[in-house]
């Protein structure tokens, strides 16, 4: 395998993992064919929508204050929040993409399942309680705690919105492709449905509705996935060795299925991807926001543990599904175009999980899993939209433009209009990018999260010396370097812009852009001799005591 094609796989895989961008990720996945209208799937999806709209109505009645809107009043329990975090994080694409990867490449798919999980302990050990103790609505509450509110919030909001917008576009394009494929609906109709439902959940039901949509989706996805996995695994007598030996016998790759392939042959890319996954997770605004929905640090820790458990279990289930599909789907001609075994899989490379559902549970199971995939996209985009709207209303409007003088009602009103605007933008861009390769957008979202949001956030919690100038320099350096690296790498420079050769050899920015951000934050801080900087350093002790003990933390409303 040439290094070119390895980089291809990287871009593609990151796309697969993070978003619904799966189906639009590679050249051969770009144009999914519209399938016959799947009525079972549509009926089940309509049922899901009716239930969630009912919940939104109930949530709208309970949403009275800004705290209710942004964080469900801090009244979500640790267990509920853990499920919601998992629901926010497990995308349709990680489900379909990783099972597809395992189906095609075996071992290499497993590597990505692991990468997707390891950010969680870091969040638990280093960030969870400080986030909860210092934050109120957005992570900028923490970075700006003792620094200049207006400057730091502005740059934090830019970082958040960059992540949210790129992630949203990738999700929208993936949603359109996936739904066209699974439900037999037109691409634009699918994108509009996702956009409209997202705006309804977020504007009317705020965080309460978003949380419950995510909880229900997490249960459906875990339940449905586990059921299909068990039915498939039972055909191998629940023996891993039997499963593996049959997969090896039935795969074109043979024994190579069980060995690491070319995915991580280049150590720089391997480590950079791993850094981006690990610390990008810890800088995603919609994930960080979930920590403010629980009443205290104890519940915050509990929720990350539940989330880690769910996500770890989920990726194990997905890997077993992929391996089972090699034998069950791979030897059944009805799942291949023209009935040619080993030819092109009907619907493309991300369909093994869906075909497996059909093989072990018939049309009913296929319809159910399709509906779950749709629900999954809705839950992820709703979380993103809420995080984006909060950055606009709480950070930019209330604290930068109105300098903290806006009333709660005004702030919530701006938040609702922002989510409407974000919805319209997401739908328009989703339609505009239909035929584009959007895989790079996820890499970019994670790169920016790891380089612009994470360094300043962690420094603000741990380093007394961080000043406003340092925070601004660090954020800008991280943002600019991550974006530049992605744009100049093959993913954008060659694949999207059609140039001959990439100007930068690596597609994964984190190994370069994270150190640049940390260095700039340090340099900006130590060179800051202003009176303000001295005061900011003095304020650290007070912040530290509060971060450690939870003294003065935003309380919970009784729900």
């Amino acid at each position: 395998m040439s290094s070119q094609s390895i980089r291809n796989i990287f871009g593609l895989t990151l796309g697969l993992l993070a978003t619904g961008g799966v189906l639009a990720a590679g050249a051969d996945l770009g144009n999914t064919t519209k399938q016959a209208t799947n009525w079972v799937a549509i009926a089940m999806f309509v049922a899901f929508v009716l239930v969630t709209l009912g919940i939104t109505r109930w949530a709208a009645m309970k949403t009275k204050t800004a705290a209710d809107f942004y964080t469900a009043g801090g009244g979500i329990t640790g267990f509920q929040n853990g499920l919601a975090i998992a629901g926010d994080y497990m995308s349709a694409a990680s489900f379909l993409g990783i099972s597809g990867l395992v189906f095609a490449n075996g071992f290499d798919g497993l590597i990505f399942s692991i990468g997707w999980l390891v950010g969680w302990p870091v969040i638990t050990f280093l960030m969870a309680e400080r986030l909860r103790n210092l934050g109120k609505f957005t992570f900028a509450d923490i970075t700006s705690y003792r620094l200049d509110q207006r400057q730091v919030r502005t740059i934090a909001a830019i970082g958040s919105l960059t992540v949210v917008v790129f992630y949203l576009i990738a999700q929208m394009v993936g949603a359109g492709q996936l739904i066209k494929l699974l439900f037999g609906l037109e691409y634009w109709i699918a994108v509009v449905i996702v956009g409209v439902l997202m705006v309804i959940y977020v504007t009317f039901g705020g965080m309460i509705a978003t949380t419950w949509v995510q909880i229900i989706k997490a249960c459906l996805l875990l339940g449905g996935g586990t059921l299909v996995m068990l039915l498939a695994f039972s055909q191998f007598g629940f023996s891993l060795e039997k499963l593996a030996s049959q997969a090896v016998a039935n795969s074109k790759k043979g024994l190579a299925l069980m060995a690491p392939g070319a995915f991580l042959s280049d150590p720089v890319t391997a480590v950079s991807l791993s850094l981006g996954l690990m610390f990008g997770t810890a800088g995603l605004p919609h994930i960080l926001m979930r920590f403010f929905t629980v009443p205290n640090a104890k519940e915050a820790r509990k929720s990350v543990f539940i989330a880690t458990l769910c996500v770890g279990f989920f990726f194990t289930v997905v890997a077993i599904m992929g391996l089972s599909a090699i034998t069950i789907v791979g030897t059944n001609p009805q799942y291949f175009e023209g009935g040619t075994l080993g030819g092109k899989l009907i619907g493309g490379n991300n369909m093994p999980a869906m075909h497996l559902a059909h093989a072990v549970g018939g049309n009913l199971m296929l319809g159910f899993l399709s509906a779950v995939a749709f629900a999954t996209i809705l839950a992820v985009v709703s979380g993103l939209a809420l995080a984006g709207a909060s950055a606009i209303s709480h950070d930019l409007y209330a604290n930068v433009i109105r300098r903290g003088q806006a009333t709660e009602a005004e702030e919530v009103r701006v938040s609702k209009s922002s989510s409407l605007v974000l919805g319209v933008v997401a739908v328009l861009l989703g339609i505009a990018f239909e035929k584009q390769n959007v895989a790079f957008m996820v890499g970019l979202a994670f790169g920016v999260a790891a380089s612009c949001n994470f360094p300043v956030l962690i420094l603000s919690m741990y380093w007394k010396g961080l000043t406003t100038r340092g925070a601004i320099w660090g954020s800008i350096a991280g943002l600019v370097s991550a974006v530049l690296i992605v744009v100049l790498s093959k993913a954008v420079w060659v694949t999207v812009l059609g140039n001959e050769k990439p100007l930068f050899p690596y597609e994964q920015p984190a190994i370069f852009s994270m150190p640049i951000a940390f260095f700039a934050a340090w340099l900006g801080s130590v060179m800051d001799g202003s009176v303000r900087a001295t005061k900011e350093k003095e304020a650290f002790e007070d912040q530290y005591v509060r971060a450690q003990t939870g003294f003065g933390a935003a309380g919970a409303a009784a729900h």
Partner: protein
Amino acid sequence: MSEDVVARIEANPKYHDLVHKRNSFGYILSVLMIIAYYGYILLIAFNKEWLAGKLGAGMVTSIGIPLGVGVIIFTIILTNIYVRRANTEFDDMNAEILREANKR
């Protein structure tokens, strides 16, 4: 008023004990996690042959597969260990510190 409470917390040796214990516990677990994960990634980058080795005679499952599942389980166990200790021992200490600071 609230500055007084913060000052009283800082003056309490129990607070420094808690911060020291909890932070070092968090750092140790983070380092363990980083070693496990990046160790695995570096094995994949530099020693594919060993990972591709068979688990036993006549078996097809490679060493890398249970090891990978092991990293997933290790992640979950490590998180559980931290959360358990933080939610009992550390939170009890924390509650006591806050009680003492608010009493006077």
